[in-house]
């Protein structure tokens, strides 16, 4: 029987914990929240327990909604309801886990909801309640220059994620759609609009190949979308020589309340969801099912994983089955999947 064991419960944040993320080596966990701090968690060398290694504060005036490590592991970016993004740099400090805010990205009109690094490390994407997605180019000198302001959504943009291998960004919105953007002739363009959800799309995650996308929504469904390239053998129409993203699976009736986050493990292929019913659930695509109509198999439900809404889940990039979560209950938790 598959199970998800709770490894530890990490207190420290005062208020809602909104987001968690791993560094690329998977040995540092970062979290952020309502208390306007970013916390770095790592293993204690002697006891092997997970402990708070560092607290970054004084960067933001309001709730920190999202936080992530750069692909080079040297930088941390954070997005806040104060309308800015901060870049935290490790290299300028002498001590092990000390970071300093070395740049503030300003431009959004109001709350920044998410910040994400491209896999190449060349770009940063941010999104906001002001309905726009911004692409920032990362300069060699540590400067960030705005490369595009994309106003394709008609409402609040909740989350941005990058394709695992290409400079393609996908955004999820309060307008119930997902949009995808890429660079074409020096301009960033929207090349796909994914319509099927019936309410806010809260989060999204690519699989390891980047050919599948999972989305979760306030409509309490998970959807799996598949990329169909121009001239595909399945007869799925494409336009302008761009791929079509088509919904190939909808899972409803499992989550009784909004689904706030979804994470797709690039090592095991497992999917995890964070939900407003305080539960964490684990799924996988049945390998026997038709790739054009995959079946999502529910492996585990952990009811009451937290005492309040679970806001974020993220799989460790190196240790298979290690999952981090955070909640309105002010806690970060670590879990181990056993199959």
């Amino acid at each position, binding site marked *: 029987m598959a199970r998800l064991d709770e490894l530890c419960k990490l207190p420290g944040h005062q208020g*809602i914990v909104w987001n968690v993320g791993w560094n690329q080596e998977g040995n540092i966990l970062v979290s952020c929240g*309502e208390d306007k701090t970013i916390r770095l968690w790592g293993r204690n060398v002697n006891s092997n327990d997970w402990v708070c290694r560092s607290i970054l504060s004084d960067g933001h005036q*309001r*709730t920190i*909604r999202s936080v992530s490590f750069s692909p080079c592991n040297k930088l941390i970016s954070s997005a806040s*309801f104060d309308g800015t993004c901060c870049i935290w740099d490790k290299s300028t400090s002498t001590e092990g886990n000390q970071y300093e*805010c*070395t*740049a*503030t*990205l*300003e*431009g959004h009109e*109001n*709350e920044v909801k998410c910040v994400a690094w491209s896999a190449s490390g060349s770009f940063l994407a941010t999104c906001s309640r002001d309905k726009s997605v911004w692409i920032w180019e990362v300069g060699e000198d540590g*400067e*960030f*220059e*705005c*490369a*595009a*302001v*994309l106003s*394709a959504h008609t409402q*609040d943009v909740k989350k941005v994620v990058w394709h695992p291998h290409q400079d393609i960004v996908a955004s999820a919105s309060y307008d119930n759609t997902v949009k995808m953007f890429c660079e074409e002739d020096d301009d*960033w*363009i*929207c*090349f*796909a*609009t994914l*319509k099927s959800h019936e309410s806010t799309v809260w989060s999204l995650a690519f699989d390891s190949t980047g050919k599948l996308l999972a989305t979760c929504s*306030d409509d*309490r469904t998970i959807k799996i979308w598949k990329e169909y390239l121009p001239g595909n053998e*399945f*007869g*799925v*129409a*494409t*336009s302008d020589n*761009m791929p079509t993203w*088509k*919904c190939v*699976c*909808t*899972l*409803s*009736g499992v989550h*009784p*309340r909004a689904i706030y986050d979804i994470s797709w493990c690039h090592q095991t292929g497992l999917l995890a969801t964070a939900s*407003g019913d305080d539960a964490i659930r684990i799924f996988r695509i049945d390998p026997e099912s038709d790739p*054009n*109509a*995959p*079946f*999502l198999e*529910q492996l585990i439900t952990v009811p*009451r994983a937290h*005492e309040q*809404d679970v806001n974020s889940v993220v799989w460790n990039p190196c240790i298979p089955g290690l999952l981090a979560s955070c909640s309105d209950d002010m806690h970060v938790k670590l879990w181990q999947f056993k199959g």
Partner: protein
Amino acid sequence: MFLTSFLKKISSSESKPPPEKVNSVILEKVVTVSSPVNLPSWKDRSIWTSSCRQEPNVQNQCQEIKEIITDLLRTIRDPEKPNTLEDLLVITDESVQVQPFEENGYLVRIDFNPTVPHCSLASLIGLCLRGKIQKNVVERIKLDIVIAEGKHSTEEEINKQINDKERVAAALENPNLKEMVDSCIRDEE
């Protein structure tokens, strides 16, 4: 710390029409798992109106929570009139419903009546209701706040907005909105 300044380069981000699906031969597979929903959301009106069988002591606890919350809400002042929400019948004895979930959780649903069907302050009232409950109720609750069915011209839009936890959290941090909410929910000396 240096502040990078930027030229807002507005790219032509005209979204293309959605890809055509007419020639698609693959049918979308919808998987519905029929598991009993014991934690309905505000979208499940039917579950809320159905009577659920409860132990007498659980029923009493729910009744108690209902009374505490109703008392908190009735004294909130209207954002633009000198009256309370109870005076204006925005909140009545029937507005609050409470159901148990798990061992010590309560599912709280509030249906409020805007004073007029096009009331522009309906979302602010929603924010006041949530703000006051968050400040005063320590029990483990799930809170859904909706406009009583058929009582507002843009009911669905407002329900979506006032139940979006992220927007609510951001709004309650906005100094101007926070001041308005605080002045409405502050208890009279």
